[in-house]
């Protein structure tokens, strides 16, 4: 197994006495697609929130590239090189597709107002370069015809592709994808899978929360299985998805919880 990009150690979080995440430890190996699966309420999104600083853990640590990132704010975690997507997308609906992607580039001098005023030429040149890169990315996810459309006017499937485009533009070593295929019809799922697969084949490290087990089997190199806030098992897709015990836990729990 290759070296770990992200190391999660003994992470715990409770909400009003209910343990949402309990003593969870795992590694996310570099250059691989790791899936985090489990029934509803297993604590998967809470894990994402703990990694990105949206929630503070009660105990435990998260390390990126060996650096402890516990306690950092979400914007700082993003700068460390972790791109996170949301189930409710959290796009900038009143901005164009191109502007959504442009917002994602790191190291923009023009985001400092004094640089805008004191080094206008440099900011202008940089912006021009970012703009052409943004259009390449928009093209890559198949939305070039919609580049100047407001994101709020796009279909849900198109909006989910903007999310991917935004993550590409961040150039983060690690992606946390929260249900990238939920709510999509089959052709859109296939398109989304194509995007993710091509990124992983280029060496992008991803950690995916996903409910669609066919998608999980298709893209995962490694699977982490959670239920009731605990990490129950981890292994290759064949190991995990063929285990009758885990299947029972997954399906049994998901029928109970809807």
């Amino acid at each position, binding site marked *: 197994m290759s070296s770990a990009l992200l190391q999660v150690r003994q992470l715990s979080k409770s909400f009003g006495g209910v343990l949402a995440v309990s003593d969870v430890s795992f590694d996310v190996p570099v250059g691989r697609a790791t899936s985090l699966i489990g029934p509803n309420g297993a604590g998967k999104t809470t894990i994402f929130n703990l990694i990105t600083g949206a929630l503070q853990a009660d105990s435990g640590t998260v390390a990126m590239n060996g650096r402890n990132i516990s306690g950092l704010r979400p914007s700082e975690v993003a700068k460390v090189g972790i791109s996170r997507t949301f189930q409710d997308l959290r796009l900038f609906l009143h901005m164009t597709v191109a*502007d959504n992607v442009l917002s994602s580039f790191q190291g923009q001098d023009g985001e400092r107002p004094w640089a805008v005023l004191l080094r206008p030429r440099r900011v202008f040149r940089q912006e021009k370069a970012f703009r052409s890169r943004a259009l390449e990315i928009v093209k890559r996810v198949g939305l070039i015809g919609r580049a100047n459309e407001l994101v709020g006017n796009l279909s849900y499937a198109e909006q989910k592709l903007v999310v991917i485009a935004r993550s590409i533009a961040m150039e983060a070593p690690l992606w946390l994808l929260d249900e990238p295929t939920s709510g999509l019809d089959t052709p859109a799922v296939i398109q989304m899978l194509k995007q993710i697969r091509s990124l992983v084949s280029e060496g992008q490290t991803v950690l995916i929360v996903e409910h669609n087990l066919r998608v999980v089997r298709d893209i995962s190199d490694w699977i982490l299985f959670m239920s009731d806030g605990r990490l129950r098992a981890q292994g290759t897709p064949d190991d995990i998805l063929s285990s009758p015990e885990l299947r029972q836990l997954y399906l049994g729990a998901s029928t109970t919880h809807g």
Partner: protein
Amino acid sequence: MGFALSIVVSIAIFAILAVSFDLVLGYAGLFSVAHAAFFAIGAYTTALIALHTGAPILLAAAGAVLACAISSALLAVLVIRVSQDYLVIASFGFLTLVLAALANLPDLTGGTLGIGGIPPPSLFGWTVSGLLSYAIVFSLIAAVVVAVTWWLAHSPYGRALRAIRDNVVGAEALGKNPTFFRVTAFVIAGALAGIAGAMYATYISYISPDAFSNDVNILIFAMVVIGGAGTVVGPLVGAILLVSLPAVLSLLPLAPTLVGPVGQIIYGALLVAFAMSNADGLLGIFHSSDRWLRAQFKRTLTELERQ
């Protein structure tokens, strides 16, 4: 001719106020309603520095801009964490506090009597005198301020402001620190309002709390909303329109006592119409990207009327 020139001077001052306020209201999407406070702080600081220290007027104006930037940062730090509804109230409280201080600190501000004898602007030994000179100099200053604001608003900085306005959590996940962007927007807008305050004080040479009432505050707000928030050019159009409105009315066969009230009714009606209709301000009718703001305007208006 003199009348027209005095309108130009007013437009220059209000254009700066409206365009700078657009950074906070339109771009950052923060419903602060305290912009007239920085106009007042700018005017008073200019007057006090010039009169008490005898410093050149440009230096006094620089001090005013600094005072506005600092007080604006203070307001920002205090109110930025509260939700939009409370932001309206908290910032309005700030304005009330500033206006009350001006009227009730006679030793410092002259109280309700105000401060007179403020020297005119001068530059390298040349002193601005005569309406024509004021109109030219102030128009040039306003043009520079509008251009700078436009450049900021259309830079990656302005884009980050809009991103945070649209979705804070989404913007944070891309590495934007909302506090940084919001506080800087407040500081820049406050500093620019300070320039307008310095211009006003040196032009009119006598200032009193009456000049910075909540009416002025709502007028600035109306210029941004009617012109089109989040566009920079819209608030400029709004400033030109609302400053010239009373002048145009005075040319109509109306009793002089009616000109003021009729003007108020017209801009009040425009404000309500734009806040409640589907139009994003005058500019928004032609090209629009900020439908989000409409719902917010309606709420803010109700809040303001309640004060």
